[in-house]
C-alpha cells in the first residue's frame, strides 16, 4: 500500500522535502511511521512532533492504502 506523507515547518526543513509517496509493507501504526520518518533527522525534540492521519491527530491509527499523513511540529499560529 502507499501513503502520502506531508512535512511541515521544521520537519520539512530537516527532511529537506515537503511531500513524498511511501510504499508500506504490512500493518503499521501512525506512531511507528512517525518514528520511521523522523529517524536520522536533526530535530531536537521529536516528541513535540505530532502525526495526523487524514487530518486526525491520533497516532494509534493503523494506516491504510491511500492515507494522507502529515508530520506537524509545534503549532505557532497567532
Amino acid at each position, binding site marked *: 500500500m502507499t501513503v502520502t506523507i506531508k512535512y*511541515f515547518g521544521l520537519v520539512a526543513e530537516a527532511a529537506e522535502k515537503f511531500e513524498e509517496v511511501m510504499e508500506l509493507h504490512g500493518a503499521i501504526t501512525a506512531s511507528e511511521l512517525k518514528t520511521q520518518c523522523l529517524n536520522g533527522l536533526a530535530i531536537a525534540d521529536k516528541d513535540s512532533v505530532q502525526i495526523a492521519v487524514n*487530518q486526525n491527530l491520533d497516532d494509534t491509527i493503523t494506516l491504510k492504502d491511500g492515507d494522507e499523513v502529515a508530520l506537524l511540529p509545534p*503549532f505557532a499560529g497567532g
Partner: protein
Amino acid sequence: MDKRKPKKVFIQGAIPPEKIATSVANHQSKSNIGAHSIFLGQIRADEVDGKTVTAIDYTAYEEMAENVFHQIREATFAKFDITCAHVYHSLGKVNVGELCLFVFTSSAHRKIAIEATNFLVEEIKAKVPVFGKEIFEDETHQWKVNK
C-alpha cells in the same frame, strides 16, 4: 447542527489595518449588536541571543487548518450567545509591527463578546496547524513555538 459554511481564514501576507475598520463598518446595520470584541496579533521584535526578529514567515497544513478553524468557530457559536465571529490569519511573510491575526466577535453585551474572542484566540493558538519561521535581521531563523 452545522449550519454555517466554512469561511476562508487565510490571507496572504499581513492583514491590512483597514480591514478592521471595514469589518466594523459592515456590522453597523446589525441593530441587535451592542458590543464588538477584537483581538489583533502583531509581530513582535523578539530578541534571541543578541539577534532581533524582523518578520515571521507563516506556513500551514492549509486543508486541516481551514477545517479546524471552522470547528473552533462552530464551538464558539455553541458556547457563547454571539451574533457574529470572524477570524483572519496571515500566511507568508509578515514584518514586525504588522498584523497576523484578526479575531472579531459581536454580541448584544460586552462580557459575552470578550469571552468569545478570548476562547477563539486560545483555541486557535492551541489547535490550528500553523507554523511560524522567525526571521532575524541577518537572514538566519528559528521556529516559533506558542507558549
